């Protein structure tokens, strides 16, 4: 148990992908035909400059107007946002919400595949097929303004594929925004991939990519058992095709600067769309990342040389990367950032600002940038007409602890509702509790 209790968690992000074409999921369950006017707030569209005294109109689950001189439709439900801040719903781009309910209870963990005969290559694993839409961990995140989360698999060399979901009532299909959004792999943990060194991780990834290519050329031979043996199963090789085609990004979890460089070389050799996840030392290779147009998912509260792969960790990382021209989406790095504290992505943003990122970049890093990375910026991440109406009204600066969430709209529907944690607090607010209500 490293570091007492907290050693249980893995500070690195976990992320993932799928092969069979991007499934853009339609908005289902047609948000009640409702028109809402959020009036007079400090509106932060992210895609453009702030609008003081702005209005946001929501109709039938979409944003229909954003601006200062916006006509309020007849019959619109009016929300006075004077003195409030209005932002897009926050997107947390690296979670295990709905995949892990109680971290130390095995039967509630569904973020990892075993792989074919224990193989470290689990590319075919579509993590969202095990997503629990009724997880009690969703509500605390949503009640603090997180409306959309990426769910990613973890483990092995290639962990599998992740998805982007909205935190809405309903089943997985109702929640789905897009799947897959990325294929997750890692460079940096040889032991986790049953190999002996970092270089061998790259070797295995190259072998997989080569075999996936060969397989695609020789599917018929493969079916007749007339191809050589491949390093991964048929399902995994199939799953890698969209990655090879550049349709699905390869999200490589890597911290060490040299590992990141190795991932950049790999991506270049196979023309992959690369995203670096975790990236503790990414600032040390910021220019290379910028030149290769490789975005980074990184946190702002990492500064301990906690392993020999993170000796260069520092809190200025996100800000330095942005300054070099790298696209940065922030991820959680505090306590239990994947489930219980998905909500603390706002704290990452605040700390990123304290350590040199501009405030606007920090907000972008938890809204529009992740939407862009996952190919949904035409629907998510900004306040613009036509966008999905994921909107949050805050009492003030969303990064400040003293700020309250006043309204959360997910797909145009009011979404605030008491969480299990809220019910516990109400129950025990006066002692002894009644055990009845709540």
């Amino acid at each position: 148990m490293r570091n007492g209790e907290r050693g249980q968690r893995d500070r690195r992000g976990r992320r993932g992908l799928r092969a069979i074409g991007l499934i853009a999921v339609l908005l289902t369950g047609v948000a009640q035909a409702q028109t809402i006017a959020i009036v007079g707030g400090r509106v932060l569209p992210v895609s453009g400059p702030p609008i003081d005294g702005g209005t946001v109109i929501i109709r039938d689950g979409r944003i229909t107007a954003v601006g200062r001189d916006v006509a309020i439709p007849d019959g619109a439900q009016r929300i006075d946002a004077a003195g409030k801040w209005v932002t897009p719903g926050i997107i947390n781009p690296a979670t295990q919400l709905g995949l892990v309910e109680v971290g130390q209870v095995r039967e509630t963990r569904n973020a990892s595949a075993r792989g074919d005969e224990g193989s470290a290559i689990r590319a075919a694993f579509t993590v969202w097929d095990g997503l629990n839409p009724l997880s009690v961990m969703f509500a605390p995140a949503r009640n603090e303004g997180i409306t959309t989360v990426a769910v990613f698999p973890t483990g092995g060399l290639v962990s599998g594929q992740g998805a982007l979901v909205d935190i809405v009532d309903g089943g997985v299909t109702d929640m789905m925004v897009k799947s897959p959004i990325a294929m997750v792999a890692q460079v940096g943990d040889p032991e986790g991939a049953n190999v002996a060194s970092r270089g061998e991780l790259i070797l295995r990834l190259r072998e997989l990519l080569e075999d996936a290519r060969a397989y695609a050329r020789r599917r018929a031979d493969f079916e007749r058992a007339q191809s050589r043996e491949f390093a991964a199963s048929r399902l995994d090789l199939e799953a890698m095709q969209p990655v090879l085609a550049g349709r699905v990004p390869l999200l490589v979890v890597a911290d060490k600067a040299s590992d990141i460089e190795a991932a950049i070389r790999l991506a270049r050799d196979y023309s992959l769309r690369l995203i670096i996840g975790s990236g503790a030392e990414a600032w040390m290779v910021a220019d290379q990342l910028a030149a290769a147009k490789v975005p980074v998912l990184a946190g702002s509260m990492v500064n301990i040389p906690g392993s020999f792969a993170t000796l260069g960790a520092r809190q200025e990382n996100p800000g330095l990367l942005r300054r070099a021209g790298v696209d940065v989406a922030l991820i959680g790095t505090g306590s239990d950032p994947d489930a219980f504290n998905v909500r603390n992505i706002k704290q990452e943003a605040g700390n990123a600002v304290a350590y040199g990122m501009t405030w606007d970049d920090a907000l972008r890093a938890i809204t529009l940038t992740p939407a862009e990375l996952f190919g949904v910026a035409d629907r998510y991440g900004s306040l613009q007409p036509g966008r999905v109406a994921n909107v949050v009204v805050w009492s003030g600066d969303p990064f400040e602890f003293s700020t309250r969430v006043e309204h959360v709209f997910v797909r145009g529907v009011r979404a605030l509702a008491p969480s299990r944690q809220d019910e516990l607090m109400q129950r025990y607010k006066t002692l002894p509790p009644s055990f009845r209500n709540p």
Partner: protein
Amino acid sequence: MTRFAILALAATAACASGGATARAPSTPSTPSAETSAQGATGSGALSAPLADPFPSTYTPFPSRATVIRNVTIFTAVGPRIVNGAILLRDGKIAAVGTSVDAPADAIVIDGAGKFVTPGLIDTHSHMGVYAAPGVQANSDGNEATNPVTAHVWAEHSVWPQDPQFPRALAGGITTAQILPGSANLIGGRSVVLKVVPARTVQAMKFPGAKYGLKMACGENPKRVYASRGPSTRMGNVAGYRNAWIQAEQYRRRWDKWLADKKGDPPSRDLGNETLAEVLRGNILVHNHCYRGDEMAQMIDIAREFGYKIRSFHHGVEAYKVADLLARDSISASIWADWGGFKMEALDGVKGNMALVHQAGARTVVHSDDPSGIQRLNQEAAKGIAAGAALGITVTEEDAITWLTLNPAWSLGLDDRIGSIEVGKNADIVLWSGNPFSVYSRAERVWIDGAQMFDRTDPAEAWRTDFELGFVRRGAL
């Protein structure tokens, strides 16, 4: 009552104890280093109260009289002082108020827009014992070889070159209790350290600080010892009680011998010696315990054997028994918002800090984490906000005590640190802004009046031996 008698005994028997803390002003009755050094032939053989075989060698770093003026001061003992001033001199807080007289030679710092607080204190850290990098060779926090390891002392695992120390200092931490891990029912002695660069752990030890005893409830011990036992919570409780039964016999044997010195001394046992010191009130109990119902049981065990629990640690369900904690004067060393990761942590809520506070018990913001320790102020800010959401008003003045005076009390050091009052140690943080803002950072930190950290001067930042060559400057 018996305890007082025993304390008196301790004084008479003290010549048999190990070294002393000559620098500790509040423990004048402890023997001088001279006598203890001379006692080398006997001290290792005897089990004496208040023995101090690894005495602190800490001495304050050089300091100059320093005035911070035009600054907002959270004293932890009253309303904030706006446009206030503070004078640090000879390692102590010499004056505080709306203005102070600055000696001619004093360094004067303009604190416009800034805030001053007491140095932050973490009751729960594993810095040094689980040092970075977190490789197996640095994993020295759990002696997970027996469910009761009262005989181990955390200080013997502390690596002073752990790069986590300077990072905690940069977060405004001036004092930290280093605990053994939670694998065991009784994990061993803690040690209270000043967060200062040193060659030895002795040079970090807070002079005169009491030791703590780490105990752990629930899932961890029964998981770690599942095959040999305890494997259940009832096994855990039997384990604590058996240990205290042994310890009580040991204490009686020794106290009797120390009083009459008749015959050969009883044989010495390191584990029972530590537990006997708890029974004598000389060591404070820090009990890792998540669930409220288990806290209630631990309170009963403490009553059964006549010791006090000073603080429940982690305590995600402290809010369920906050009235019991208030009744028995037990502090709750807790997180702002961490839970859910195992069954006994399932009911963690963000209102925990505010609910405990509302019930009249002492809330303590603790970290158990080398990253979290750097931002305890942010955790307290979350606690304020969670209280507001519940309709519980927690003022910033209240929340400052969660970071300073309450943890100081939990360590038995509230007479020396934890608030800004004349005569107390000059452990001070100057913040770039309101410490409850996410944008504020500790700018300068003083320990015993000596400036130990200055964010504006990275060239002078404390770098541990390990960091040389491995870690570029500027990672704080």
